């Protein structure tokens, strides 16, 4: 319950800051009665009103089947997963799709309970297979990065 209140308070704060920013939006010249700031301001006010109400009466959280409250181990793993994702995104163009997705797939495979061998095989198959499928067949351009000298 306390976490939810903290979250709602943060949401409220963010909305307030955004509202202050939105208040400054002004069209240099305008040919319509509603400017660019009315609509976001209206919504932010409504969100803040709703959040305030929830802050005082948060209600109960119903857990889905098989879900439990988080403990420290899960939280650590989730942080690790997000970090992996971020590194993947950062390397995406630099190292190119094949290399970065190979590393990402291996580590993610390990994180999700695969053995080293299985994750490695999965990584090789996925990085090359998806590159071939998307870049060559489906015409979705993907960066080659450090492998760009191999362009064929």
């Amino acid at each position, binding site marked *: 319950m306390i976490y*939810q209140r903290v*979250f709602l308070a943060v949401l409220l704060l963010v909305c307030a800051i955004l509202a202050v920013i*939105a208040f400054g*939006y*002004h*069209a*240099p010249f*305008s*040919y*319509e*009665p*509603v*400017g*660019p700031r009315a*609509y*976001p301001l209206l*919504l*932010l006010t409504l*969100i803040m009103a*709703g*959040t305030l109400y*929830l802050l005082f009466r948060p*209600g109960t*959280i*119903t857990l889905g089947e*098989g*879900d439990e409250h988080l403990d420290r181990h*899960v939280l650590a793993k*989730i942080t690790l*997963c*997000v970090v992996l*994702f971020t590194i*993947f*995104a*950062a390397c*995406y*163009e630099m190292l190119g*799709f094949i290399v970065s*997705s190979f590393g*990402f*797939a291996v580590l*993610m*495979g*390990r*994180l*999700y*309970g*695969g053995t080293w061998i*299985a*994750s490695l095989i*999965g*990584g090789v198959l*996925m990085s090359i297979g*998806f590159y071939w499928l*998307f870049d060559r067949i*489906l015409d*979705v*351009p*993907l*960066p080659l990065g450090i492998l760009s000298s191999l362009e064929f």
Partner: protein
Amino acid sequence: METLSYLGQGFGVATTPFNLFTALCGTLIGTIVGLLPGLGPINGVALLIPIAFALGLPPETALILLAAVYLGCEYGGRISSILLNIPGEASAVMTTLDGYPLARQGKGGIALSISAWSSFIGGLMATIGVVIFAPLLASWAVAFGPAEYFALMVFAIVCLAGMAGNKPLKTAVAAMIGLFLSSVGIDSNSGVYRFTFGSLGLSDGIQFVVLVLGLFSVSEILVLLERTHRGQKAIQASGRMLFNLKEGASVFLTNLRGGAIGFFLGILPGAGATLASAVAYMSEKRINDQEGTFGKGDLRGLAAPETANSASACGSMVPMLTLGVPGSGTTAVMLGALTLYNITPGPLLFQNQPDIVWGLIASLFIANLMLIVMNVPMIRIFTKILAVPYWALVPAIAIITSIGVYAVHATTFDLFLMIAIGVIGYILRKFDFPLSAILLGFILGGLMEQNLRRALSISNGDLGILFSSPICWGVWALTALMIVLPMLRGWRRRLRTVRAGG
């Protein structure tokens, strides 16, 4: 009766062996493309236009191919919604609500077959609807001005909050967040940059694909991590793959209602399919949810949005063909394909080139039929996705997701944005905020603001225009009803518990 003969002609063209084979290939390709998260009908159709052109297919065959790919993608999107809880596109959001719980109960096969069957009924109803109402439809779509649209959007949002039952306020807040997110980016009316914080990546607004994949795909990956940690395995679809007669009969009335709603809302250009599936789901929940099974794996909750969806897919062809107004990204791409073949959609198309119009309608119908013929035997294969262990499935989903996001702008900024949205989505999910509401709010948001501002521009700032036509009055009355009814019901329930307690 003229329309009937045209339709017959259309079917004559569509049922030649070559065209039937094309439709079969189209549905197969469409299903596979739609199955990949982040790639939807837009990609599928856009992918095949140059191929169709390069192969030198005659216009009617090309149209059949495109219609088949369109419907195939729609159906493929259902597979990932139901089995993985990742909706590929906006109109599949409602499918996850009851589809995913069904898959978690091991009824993935039944859910997929009900979904295919419902889509078929929806498509069938809409085809019949187009034949009967075609002349009336154009005028109905034109009768919706900006003010009417705005009222309709408000109605949809209110419905959404009312639908949530036990947490209307959280749903409302989530929908507002979605509505707000749509205002990020350059304001098309005044050119003011809103909430971009000087970032070039945000100046274009938040892309739909980035939002949907962040909210659903990334947060689902994190939830799967929790489950792996606890040693849970995916629940495999077992036993029957097909629904039985009893289940089919139990959703039949739902199918009929969903088809009607889908068809009429699908005609409206704009958020037709999304609105249709949302409204169909909500009204079905209103009518049938006495035991509170909706959202926990009720077949009717799956059938309603599915029927509405496919009915509106056919319905959305109407504004495209009669007004030349594409109702969605996909119809916009198809519009492009039509112009490639020197066919100009617009008011005169029905008079000048009826064979093309009815050929397209007939091919939609054929594509629907093909889907059910082809996909029902393949359901067993699709449900095998659930048998893939997490260590292979999750990296695959993650990488395909990243490709889908990267394909939008080819910038890594979108990848970072997706991760951020995913983390926030995961937190929101933990606190019981419905993510589907955010997504629907986001889709309706842009249209809502545009229409509000357009309406007020017309009236020069007078709010009276929002209440000036009979359609407006009707929609506002329904909105009021939607707000009052749940309150009344809650009040009566409280009264009853007080009485029972006393």
